[in-house]
Structure formats: structure tokens, C-alpha cells
């Protein structure tokens, strides 16, 4: 899994946060990273000062966030030389962290997340279709042609990249900023379905058709296809949530080469 991640992937974990409830956001960002295996058991987190700088929050906020993680049994703090906060080697099976993350969100929150992300992404796609020049459309095609969606990790990186490119083509700085913010906040969760080979094939299969709609300047088609994509991801999350709530076995595909 590590070999597939470029060094930057880990840095997303520490990108700046926005708005209130920051200690909870610190905890959630780090929890997602541990769930996805971006931070591995036994690994030392950056210092509290460094975390504060990277997240753009006060030191006290970082400490509060780490308390939440300690209480959840995700990290432990050691004192003295070589001390710091370490990711705990979980005795629990690997899917259990994801289960707790999905348990922590209500169905209504998960479906609302998909609705909001879809609305932003559909708007980006429609505008992109109306505003992309022929050269822009060619560039998008060329990027897509060489983008690797064959593994979970690459599919997640490039799916996020594709949505960001659509925002860029919309020519709207606000949509670009919102897309970046949404991906930092919910990207790992929303794109979990790409760990499932069937869902991954269906979602990535739509990319080429979206690019074609943009080439043809067909805003409505681009919008509909993006909505289909996000619906697949949202439905996968809800299916998994239901399975976990019933106490069923986790789906191995969730954490497969995440």
C-alpha cells in the first residue's frame, strides 16, 4: 500500500482547516488518515507545534484534538526523549475503524454529504461544458487517457483530480476552492467506494463520457453523468453503513489496498 502513495498523499492529512469545531476536525482528519492506512500503527505523528502550524490552528486546539483520538484509543502519548503521539497498533480487525467512522455518521448525514458534493460537482461539469475551449477539452482527454484508475489508491487520487479539473474548467475560483475544501474534508470518506472493484469500474467508466460531453459543449449531459457517478459512491456508503449497523461482516473490499 505504501509504495502506491506518492509522498504528497500524506500531506493532505495536514492541510489547513476552516471554520468552527476545529478540535473535532483535527480529530476527524487524523482518524480518517488512520482508517485509510495513510498513518500506520506505531508511527509517530508530527509534533503538536508542527500540527498546529500545518492545520493553521492554535496549539490548544491540536491538544484537544489529540485528546479525542486518545479517548478513541487511536493514539497514545509517550513522554521524554523520543516521545510524542503514536498511532496505536490496533488489536481490532482492520475494518473496525472504518466501521466506527461510518457508525459515527447518521444515514441522513451520509446522504446529505453526497447531495452536497454532487450539487457542486454537477455545477462544475455543466459550466465546464459551456466554457471549455477546444484546447481545454483536448487537455482533459489527454490527462484522462493516461490517468491510472486500476488500483484503489490511484483511483482515489485521480477521481479527486478529475473533479478538481472540472472545477478548473468552470473558470470559477469559488468552485475550485469549494472542491478543494470538500475533498480535504470528506474526500477519503466519499471515495471509499472506489475500493470496491465493481463500483470503481462503474464510476471510472463514466469519466470518458463526461469528458465527451464537455468536448461537445453539452452541459446537461455532463451534469447528469456526474450526478450518476456521485450517486454510485453515495449508495455504496449507505449500503456499507446498513451492513455495519446490522452487525454484518465488513466488506474486505473497503480496505483492499487502500
Amino acid at each position, binding site marked *: 500500500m505504501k509504495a502506491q502513495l506518492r509522498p504528497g498523499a500524506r500531506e*493532505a492529512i495536514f492541510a489547513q482547516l476552516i471554520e468552527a469545531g476545529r478540535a473535532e476536525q483535527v480529530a476527524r482528519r487524523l482518524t480518517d488518515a488512520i482508517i485509510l492506512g495513510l498513518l500506520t500503527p506505531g508511527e509517530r505523528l508530527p509534533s503538536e507545534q508542527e500540527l498546529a502550524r500545518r492545520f493553521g490552528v492554535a496549539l490548544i486546539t491540536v491538544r484537544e484534538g489529540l485528546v479525542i483520538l486518545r479517548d478513541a484509543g487511536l493514539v497514545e502519548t509517550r513522554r521524554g526523549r523520543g516521545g510524542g503521539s503514536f498511532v496505536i497498533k490496533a488489536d481490532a480487525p482492520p475494518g473496525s475503524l472504518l466501521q466506527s467512522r461510518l457508525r459515527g455518521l447518521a444515514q441522513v448525514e451520509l446522504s446529505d454529504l453526497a447531495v452536497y458534493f454532487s450539487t457542486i460537482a454537477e455545477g462544475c461539469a455543466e459550466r465546464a461544458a459551456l466554457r471549455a475551449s477546444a484546447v481545454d477539452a483536448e487537455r482533459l482527454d489527454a490527462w484522462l487517457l493516461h*490517468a491510472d484508475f486500476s488500483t484503489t489508491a490511484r483511483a482515489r487520487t485521480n477521481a479527486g*483530480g478529475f473533479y478538481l479539473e472540472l*472545477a478548473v474548467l468552470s*473558470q470559477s475560483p469559488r468552485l475550485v476552492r469549494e472542491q*478543494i475544501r470538500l475533498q480535504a474534508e470528506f474526500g477519503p470518506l466519499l471515495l471509499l467506494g472506489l475500493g470496491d472493484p465493481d463500483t470503481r469500474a462503474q464510476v471510472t467508466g463514466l469519466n470518458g463520457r463526461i469528458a465527451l460531453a464537455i468536448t461537445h459543449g453539452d452541459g446537461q449531459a455532463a451534469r447528469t453523468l456526474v450526478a450518476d457517478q456521485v450517486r454510485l459512491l453515495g449508495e455504496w456508503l449507505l449500503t456499507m453503513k446498513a451492513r455495519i449497523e446490522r452487525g454484518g461482516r465488513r466488506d474486505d473490499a473497503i480496505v483492499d489496498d487502500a
Partner: protein
Amino acid sequence: MMPSSTTPETARPTARPAGRTTYVSCATEVGDIFARVFRTLDDWRDQIAAAVPDRADLDILVESLVVPALLASADSPAADTPSAAESLLIGAGFIAAPQYVNGRDAHFAWWLGPLASNPLLGNTSGASRLDLATRVHTEYLRDFRELEWYAVPAATNQTHVTGPYVDQLCTCDYIITLTKPVRLGERMIGVVGADIYVKRLEQVLLPHFLALAGPVVLVNQSGRVVISTEPTLPAGDILPNRRHPADGYDLLPCPGTPFLIATRIALAAI
């Protein structure tokens, strides 16, 4: 949100241009503005090329060249003064070719001017260096050398103007990027570049455009609108489009730039 004292968010009223404003004078003004930025880039390119044999302090040299220009921008965003070229800049620096500075990837010695509520940097009052490690959302870009502002000057050995476009690497804002190749003998060792904030360019040019009788639209070679006094053709749109057919417009090149002044044929004839 705290108001930022260093980065004015409201457009300043700017004095109407002196003398008679015509379509030609607008095109000339656009050309003059870009010529000043190109001259700044020429100066930086020459100093970087001269310093190249001692690679060690290159980042320090670049910082000493570009940061004063970026800070001057924040102080006088729309002043029509000799420093007006600098006042437009929101980012500038040198991007070294991968084989030139150690490491696989291109080396960025790039600084950003003061920013207000940037999603990645928050509010910054001074110049800050671009740290690509914190731009994880750009990880999907396999190689920065494929991007237009690097690829075109590398291929043509010519100065290139990219945009207007939304820059997702640095500012997350609407900008125009000017890049010039820096050469050591036959070899290109990187590009020196500057980012122009479209909103600051608008502050400078709008008084000229508004002084004209009819609507006027500044577009790039793709027809992408930069600045417009035609409400149905806002920045980011493409000319021609369904509402604005190509045969309805006259195009006047802005000297030394890839930009054109588009005017409605009926109005331009008056």
C-alpha cells in the same frame, strides 16, 4: 472574519485616463502593461542566468528579486505609476528543470504575495513561499512540466502567456501567468514567471474601457474573456458563443501580447 489591512478586497476608484480614449488607445494600454511585466521578467531572467554557476544561493537570489515586487503589489494595487507592472503581481519566481536542481521533480522557487482568505494559506500579510508538499489536491498532476506555463516555453523557447485561468496550485484564484525560458547555452534550465491577478488588471483597465462609448471585451487567443464591459459576456466566457456570434465583433490585437480587444461591429463603426 477579521478584515485584512494589507490586502484590499474592494476595488479602488481609479482616475479616468487622461487624453482621448479610443479602441486603439485601450489596445496600446494593454500592450504597455504587459510590456512592463515582460521587462521585469527579462531583468530577473538575466540575473538568474548570470548567477547559475554558483547554484547554492539561487533560492535566496530569486527571493530577493521577486518578494519586493510582490509586496509593492499589495501596497499599490491600482496605482498608475511606473511600478504599476509590479502592482499587478500575486505570485512570481523561478521553476528549475528537474535535471538542474537535485531531485526528480521540478524545483519551485516561487513566492506568493499577501492573500486574503486563501483556502490553503488563510490570510497572509507578507510574502510566502509556495510549498508544494502542502498542495496534496494537486497530486493527480503527474508532472508539472506538462502544464502549459512550463511546457510551451520549453517547447518554443519563447515567452508564453497562459490564461486567464483558475490556478489550483497557488492562489486558487483567476490569474494570467507569464513565463520566460531561462537558458544556459543551449539548455533550458527553467522558467522565470509572474502571475497577474485578473482582478487587479481589471482595476487598472476598467477606467479605460468604461471611457469608450460602446461595450468592449478583452479576450485571449482562445476567445476567453478577461475583462469586459458587456454584461452578457463576463470574464471566463468564450467569444464567440451562441449569444455572441463571431461575425458580430471586430478584433484589435494588443501589441506584443496574445490578447485582443473585441468590439461590436456596429458600435465600432460609429
